């Protein structure tokens, strides 16, 4: 129902945006897109996933018949307020820098007794096949709404991950010679009509990072940060990295470090 409403809005907004006279088209298109985003913000279907995620968090599940309520997302067992905003971070118990998704999967394995391949099989949703991970991450992310992103990467392992993320950000390859920085290293650019953030600045990275996880209207699904970055690589015509791959976590660390201080507004809603 909400989805259909949002789709109608999308159609109307895009139609209005495209009919605009050729004169002053750029500012007009920008205005219409801003209105469209405002209209979308009135009802975010991600709210439904957030409620579902809360249910999955508290429900006793898996071979160990346990809930996730004792999961340590970095602030101590069960402490979720602001946890998403300070990830990725180094975890002593796994000796790894982990993002929200790899940590959640770790908890589902250790607390609930699921096999890793079992819980990650449906890491993103397909039509008719919803993803528990998407719902849980929407819930966990929302618990950081209004909190500032805080990934100073002071631990040596975190600092190393941020540097490795920086390396990947500038690494060019593939049939289009792309790196992340080709599209996201300059101010005020757009691809077709889509504005591109400059992810090398606090403002640009902050704008990008504060709204994930986010409901993607065009996809009819919540996208997690892993999904977002893996799709960037698809757009660059590279192969897909594995879900929870270290290079994706490194990129997240680099971006969250750059975005540190920006206040979270999640779940977001996007085109």
């Amino acid at each position, binding site marked *: 129902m909400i989805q259909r409403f949002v789709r109608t809005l999308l159609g109307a907004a895009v139609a209005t945006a*495209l009919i*605009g006279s*050729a004169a002053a*088209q750029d500012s007009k*298109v920008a205005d219409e897109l801003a209105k469209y985003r405002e209209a979308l913000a009135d009802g975010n279907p991600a709210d439904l996933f957030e409620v579902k995620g809360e249910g999955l968090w508290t429900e006793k599940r898996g071979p160990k018949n346990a809930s996730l309520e004792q999961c340590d997302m970095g602030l101590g067992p069960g402490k979720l307020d602001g946890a998403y905003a300070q990830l990725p971070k180094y975890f002593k118990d796994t000796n790894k820098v982990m993002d929200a998704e790899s940590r959640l999967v770790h908890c589902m394995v250790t607390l609930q007794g699921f096999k890793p391949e079992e819980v990650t099989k449906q890491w*993103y949703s397909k039509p008719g096949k919803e993803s528990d991970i998407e719902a849980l991450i929407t819930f966990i992310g929302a618990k950081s709404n209004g909190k500032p992103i805080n990934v100073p990467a002071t631990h040596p392992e975190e600092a*190393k991950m941020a*540097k*490795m993320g*920086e*390396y*990947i*950000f*500038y*690494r*060019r*390859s*593939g*049939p*289009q*010679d*792309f*790196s992340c*920085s*080709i*599209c996201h*290293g*300059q101010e*005020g*650019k*757009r*691809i*077709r*009509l*889509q504005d*591109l953030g400059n992810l090398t600045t606090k403002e640009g990275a902050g704008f990008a990072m504060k709204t994930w996880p986010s409901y993607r209207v065009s996809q009819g699904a919540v996208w997690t940060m892993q999904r977002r970055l*893996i*799709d960037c*690589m*698809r*757009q660059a*015509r*590279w*192969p*897909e*990295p*594995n879900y929870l*791959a*270290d*290079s*994706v976590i*490194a990129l997240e660390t680099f971006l969250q470090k750059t975005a540190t201080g920006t206040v979270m507004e999640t779940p977001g809603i996007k085109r």
Partner: protein
Amino acid sequence: MKLKIALFGLLAAAVTGSALAEAPGGKFARDAEQMFRASFKAENPKYWMSRLDQDETMKTCGEYRDNPPRKVGEKLEKLNAATIRYPVDGKLIGDWKEGEKLAAVGTGGHIGFIQPDPAGRVRGGNCYACHELAKKELAYGTIGPSLKQFGKVRGGSEENIKYVYDKIYNSNAFTACTNMPRFGLHNWLTPEQITHIVAFLIDPESPVNKD
């Protein structure tokens, strides 16, 4: 006296610091490369994985954050200029109507398991993703310069036609580490397809040069 020396030292450090900005990844660059490579499924088709390979241009551009010193840039430009190949009939200007289609197509070449392009999907130059071209197309990007009225402004001399062909074939022959892909070098577009895009830019009848 001591203060002066200290100040000079600070100044020198600041100047060298900015001139020799550390390459991305710093001392972890080698580790990062290994980690990146290890992030993909080993059983991916070989032609997928080969897309992660870097030639000298890609590697050098990354190291300098796409802003190489002029000397390094010149070397890359020479290297890339030597790769340019021409259609067998030597004709560098084709059919602007075909070029118009190729400029609009943004599909093709997506790989992976989640949302790959189906086999045989049309592959285009996707010029509008980054450039303004014909006036009627409002959904254009701004990563590249506006090419509206390109032929009208620059003219259709043999020299300009060759420049446009060469630029599309291998953009790095002119500007090392530019954002523009090297369409001919990577066989993304055939020499013949490139001649159509040349026509779209230069032909006086093309919508790029109308109005």
